[in-house]
């Protein structure tokens, strides 16, 4: 079936609402507006305003309400319009959602799914272009997932809802319009493992979410020059799939992490550190990183492009590690 990332996500929400009447969608403009990115378009008409619940601009309030509703037996899907606004709800996410299970000695769990759009690339400037999913991956008690394909957009939500703990689901804004084929019977997928999106044996490109297309593009170009890159899609940012990292780097002995986060303290740092810790003697070259420039995203197109990870930069980084010392 031909579909888009946006439609796949909508189908996933619809399916969840049909499967379990404890599931509801809550957030700014999810109802009457049809969803800021039209993901929930039509769902208000189908499920009504109680289950497709428009909220006031009160990120801390409605995220906290989602946490309470989860404690009360519901299965809320809370949409924070974009990751930028999630900063206003961070206290609820970190101090309540992520800690209630542990603080209560396991008496409570918080089965909430929080969806948000993330990423840059659309000239939305400094306050609307953050990629903070890797930053969120620092928090114990949270699961962080980043669907990068139609199948994952379609299949991760239900698995996340079945998880007893809070799951943050990050949708990169540049993916919504991606078109492609999806099996008619496509359904739930695991949210714990990484996936090899392209096999290769000379270098590992490790990425996730919005930069998967970038990495695949770079891999094609590298193939043209005879460099076979393996592309690993992390899928889950917390926990990280260490086995998959070991498998690919154990095979290629060289790795480049592609991460749209600001370089310093991005997820790419943790991945580089882990590879070095676990595979130091397998490495033929230091792990390379292609990240965003450390600048609040500028509006001007040429500057934004200069700040983001591009296939060009990935190819250049691969050349470095491939020709490096070892």
């Amino acid at each position, binding site marked *: 079936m031909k579909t888009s990332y946006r439609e796949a996500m909508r189908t996933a929400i619809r399916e969840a609402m049909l499967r379990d009447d404890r599931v509801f969608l809550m957030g700014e403009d999810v109802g009457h507006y049809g969803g800021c990115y039209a993901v929930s378009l039509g769902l208000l008409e189908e499920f009504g305003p109680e289950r497709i619940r428009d909220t006031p601009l*009160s990120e801390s*309030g409605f995220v906290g*309400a989602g946490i309470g509703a989860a404690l*009360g037996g519901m299965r809320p899907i809370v949409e924070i319009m974009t990751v930028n606004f999630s900063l206003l709800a961070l206290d*609820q996410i970190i*101090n309540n959602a992520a800690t209630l299970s542990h603080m209560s000695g396991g008496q*409570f769990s918080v089965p909430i799914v929080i969806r948000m759009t993330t990423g840059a690339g659309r000239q939305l400037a400094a306050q609307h272009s953050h990629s903070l999913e890797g930053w969120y991956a620092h928090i114990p008690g949270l699961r962080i997932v980043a669907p990068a394909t139609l199948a994952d957009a379609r299949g991760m939500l239900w698995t996340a809802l079945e998880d*007893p703990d809070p799951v943050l689901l990050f949708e990169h804004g540049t993916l919504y319009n991606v078109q492609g084929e999806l099996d008619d019977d496509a359904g739930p997928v695991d949210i714990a493992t990484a996936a090899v999106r392209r096999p290769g044996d000379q270098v590992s490109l490790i990425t996730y979410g919005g930069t998967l297309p970038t990495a695949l593009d770079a891999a094609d170009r590298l193939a043209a020059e005879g460099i076979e890159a393996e592309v690993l899609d992390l899928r889950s940012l917390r926990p990280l799939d260490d086995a998959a990292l070991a498998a690919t780097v154990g095979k290629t002995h060289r790795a480049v992490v592609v991460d749209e986060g600001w370089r310093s303290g991005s997820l790419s740092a943790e991945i580089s550190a882990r590879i070095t810790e676990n595979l130091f003697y397998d490495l033929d070259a230091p792990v390379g990183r292609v990240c965003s420039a450390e600048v609040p995203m500028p509006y001007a197109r040429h500057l934004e492009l200069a700040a983001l990870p591009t296939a060009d930069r990935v190819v250049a980084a691969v050349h470095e590690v491939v020709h490096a010392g070892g």
Partner: protein
Amino acid sequence: MTHQTTDRTTAALPGIDPAHRELALHLLHQMLRVRRLEETCVELYSASKIRGFLHVQIGEEAVAAGVMSALGPEDAVVATYREHGHALLRGVPAGAILAEMYGKQEGCCRGRGGSMHLFDAGTRFFGGNAIVAGGLPVAVGLALADRMQGRDRVTACFFGDGAVAEGEFHESLNLAALWQLPVLFCCENNLYAMGTSLTLTESQTDLALKAAGYEIPAWGVDGMDALAVAEASRRAVDAVRSGGGPHFLEMRTFRFRAHSMFDPERYRDKAEVAQWVERDPIDTLRAHLGLPDDEWAALRTDVDAELQQAVAFAEAGTDEPVEELTRWVYSERGAR
């Protein structure tokens, strides 16, 4: 280990009707249990048996006692870091509370939470939150779940005067009122947020009036009078349960002790405290009841016995194995 606490109702004194006397005695008993529990906590803190932050509500017992008397077992309670009394009166055994403060696995949270994070799923006691106003949105959500599942439960949410300045207070009251959710907002106005007096934190110091601005029925209550709190709570809980939307009670009370064990109380003078101590909610109710000395003595013996058992229980507590450090970070049972 739970100590059976028996409500001791004896022949009515002339002039007080039995039902009223029964409620009054119940409240007196409950307040005394909180008072003695917290006096014990303070001793144990001085003896270094309890560590971390410890906030006692001594002087404010009428609030928890009164509100709890109006709730049913299916209702939910969300409280703050000054919640020992709320947990106790909601039904968490004193032993489990003290064991928690000892950091023992027999504690109500296996020693992971401590004084500020008491939780109990069995009595729907949702903590125990050390972020001021952090519990309000959660209470709104618990009420939303009840509304969506058609249950006529009430969620009582306790918070202090200081919490009123937080954005989460504003967002929560608006959501509860907008969606007409069954939340009872219980503001424990003790006139100070740590060392900052209400006059330095609010442009509108009439907090009931402030809540009314959200179109929420709100009224002030004498928080030193357990009977008044119980009566106001009963009426508010009935209104909320019967679909009247959120209600707000501003309980005017006072904390007799320091904010925490670290507070030298430079911000208020002894005279102010002394004035309020004269209105001690326990003494007041005892006098109102004209309780004979022997009955009072019996009540104390009863409570002291409960606490002795509780301390013994905590003392006998055991440490959770260090190997279990990261248990409960993620749930062990699947979501149901």
